[in-house]
């Protein structure tokens, strides 16, 4: 059996290897960073234009009120679930193998949420009035509408975002202290000193740290589930055919975990190479994530089929029409592509020899995410082009370059944040890896002793 991690890595080496990522990544890092900045530039340009001229430049129309922005918003919200899954759920379940990779997964959570939040703003017709949606005592003496799922959404996202930032930060404190201790003087030392909150590694500190971490983890899990359920209720609570589906919340959560896991595979492979983390992000771990992803893929496929079936065998003709239109109408290529990427491609993960094949898994993970992105688009768009009112069916609604540009740029934005994070903060949790190595050692020792005893 492959080992998740080698048990004979010296602790000093762990420190050294991880801290190295703060200093000299491979050249590819800078290439990625540069591309990401360029992509963000494109998006900013598009957004400035859209802000000045109006939402029309995105080529949405009546009744195609929502476009890629909302689809991509859901996509990014979905992405964020992987971090919570790995760090909180698997933490509670004592899955040790998560340790080298949960940090970046958490960062992914935070940054994809931030990206998703931006899409809310990008989507709004009058983003400069966004404070109208915030419930606070104000001079206008009016509250926002608490009945609106959109408001729940905003609240859920903000709560989730703040909690996950907290979670990410709290979990990093011991590592920040290590970084601090390894820094020579200078502003960076000051920064890390401040962030480390005077961590000394005393028993008391460790005890409080563990309780706090555990508490936040427990708190985060229902939040993660609720946040995507609420996003789902944006649709499920509406009256539109193709949206008004009871199974949407679990379906959305499954989809979220799915795309999150796929993204973890992608980033896992990139980080492993860029920051030379081969020793920590081992193929054995990759295999585990891949298996997890496969399981979730099947859950998603199941829920997806349930959705189709419930529509098909239900007696709501309008919803059925939307489903038929998805499969046969102008969106058919995307819809079939989504089904292919979401349900067929993951079958590759079933095969052992692919599970650790890095190029294959890289390609698969990208395809899965493409599929999941398409899934969101296929939830949002076809209902608009085939709603209740036939007179308004299907005006020309192909998203404009502006819309694509902003969606495209959001990937750059996410990558930028993520890459900067990995350069500034230890993206592999040093203390947890040490623990892991320690546990591993203990286990091997025990095994050895046990073996001896047997003889």
């Amino acid at each position, binding site marked *: 059996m492959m080992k998740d991690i080698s048990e004979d890595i010296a602790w000093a080496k762990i420190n050294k290897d991880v801290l190295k990522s703060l200093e000299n990544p491979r050249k590819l890092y800078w290439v990625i960073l540069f591309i990401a900045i360029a992509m963000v530039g494109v998006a900013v340009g598009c957004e400035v234009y859209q802000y000045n001229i109006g939402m029309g430049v995105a080529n*949405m129309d009546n009744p195609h*009120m929502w476009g890629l922005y909302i689809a991509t918003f859901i996509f990014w919200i979905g992405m964020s679930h992987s971090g919570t899954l790995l760090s909180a759920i698997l933490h509670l379940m004592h899955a040790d193998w998560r340790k080298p990779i949960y940090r970046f997964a958490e960062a992914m959570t935070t940054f994809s949420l931030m990206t998703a939040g931006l899409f809310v703003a990008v989507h709004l017709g009058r983003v400069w009035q966004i404070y109208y*949606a915030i419930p606070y005592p104000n001079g206008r003496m009016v509250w926002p509408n608490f009945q609106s799922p959109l408001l729940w959404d905003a609240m859920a996202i903000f709560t989730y975002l703040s909690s996950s930032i907290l979670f990410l930060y709290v979990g990093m404190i011991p590592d920040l202290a290590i970084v601090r201790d390894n820094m020579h003087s200078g502003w960076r030392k000051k920064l890390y000193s401040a962030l480390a909150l005077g961590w000394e590694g005393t028993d008391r500190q460790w005890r409080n740290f563990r309780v706090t971490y555990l508490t936040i983890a427990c708190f985060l899990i229902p939040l993660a589930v609720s946040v995507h359920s609420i996003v789902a209720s944006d649709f499920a609570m509406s009256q539109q055919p193709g949206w008004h589906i009871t199974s949407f919340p679990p379906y959305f959560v499954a989809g979220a975990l799915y795309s999150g896991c796929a993204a973890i595979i992608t980033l896992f492979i990139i980080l492993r190479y860029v920051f030379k983390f081969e020793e920590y992000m081992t193929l054995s771990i990759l295999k585990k994530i891949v298996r997890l992803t496969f399981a979730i893929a099947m859950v998603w496929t199941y829920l997806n089929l349930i959705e189709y079936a419930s529509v098909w065998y239900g007696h709501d003709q309008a919803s059925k029409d939307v489903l038929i239109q998805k499969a046969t109408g102008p969106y058919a290529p995307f819809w079939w592509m989504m089904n292919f990427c979401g349900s067929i491609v993951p079958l590759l993960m079933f095969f052992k020899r692919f599970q650790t094949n890095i190029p294959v898994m890289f390609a698969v993970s990208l395809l899965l995410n493409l599929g999941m992105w398409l899934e969101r688009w296929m939830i949002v768009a076809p209902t608009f082009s085939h709603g209740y009112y036939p007179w308004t069916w299907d005006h020309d609604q192909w998203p404009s370059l502006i819309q694509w540009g902003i969606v495209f740029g959001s990937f750059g934005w996410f990558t930028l944040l993520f890459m900067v994070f990995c350069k500034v903060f230890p993206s592999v949790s040093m203390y947890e890896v040490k623990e892991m190595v320690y546990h591993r050692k203990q286990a091997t020792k025990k095994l050895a002793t046990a073996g001896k005893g047997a003889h």
Partner: protein
Amino acid sequence: MSVSNLLENWSEFRHLHPVDDVPHDPYKWAMSIDLDACSGCNACSVACYAENNLPVVGKEKYAHGQAMHWMRIERYWDEDGREFPDQGAQFLPMMCQQCEAAPCETVCPVGATNHTPDGINSQIYNRCIGSRYCSANCPFKVRYFNWYDYPTTDNVWPAEMNQQLNPDVTVRGKGVMEKCTFCIQRVTVAKNNAKNEGRIVHDGDVQTACQQACPTSAISFGNLVDKESKVYKQWKAQQVELDKDAQAKDKNEEGRSELRGYRIFEELRPYPSVMYLERVRESAV
């Protein structure tokens, strides 16, 4: 503005389902449109442009489905495969149905679209942040979004044209949702005049722009609470009730009913305030 005041006034803030709700008093504005009289001439639609400062978006934007006609005339053909439409076409003026349980109202994050005690689904332009959720949830798709800044960058009202703008109606800038308001500016004036005189608005005191223009008088508008109003009488005669999702007509066997009043998408239970009267076609020819 405190939380307790929010909880206290929750029911004021939100109008509930019309069933078992507080009855409308003294006003419930409603319409009835006789499709047999409607000739599809578009006068109502143009009158609406004139009254409500609707922007003319131009060919290109119209092609993108960004037209801003609050009132659109739909033309339907028979679908039985006949070669010529030898029974004519069917025209349907479609505008905001001012639903009592409006799907748009519940989803607006800021309450920019909300129900007035008079039963109008009002749209507060300046409160709108442009989430477009209301339109997404509207079964009739009668909400129109300002995709562009028509008054300024688009210069829809160049030179002297802007002098035609109705000062009683806001000129909407970009990013705002808008829709038919039952000419609420006219209703407001009529209500104020009535209040000054210590009475309620009589039938005929207020006409919507479309109703006023309509050459065949197919559109009636009035107060459904007022038993003297034409609209009340029409609804009554057609046995259409505001708070029901199935009417007397539907309960009869197919084709047996002599009533022609119906509301569109009644089964979705938005409880529209607009009743249509079926178009009649002669059976003898």
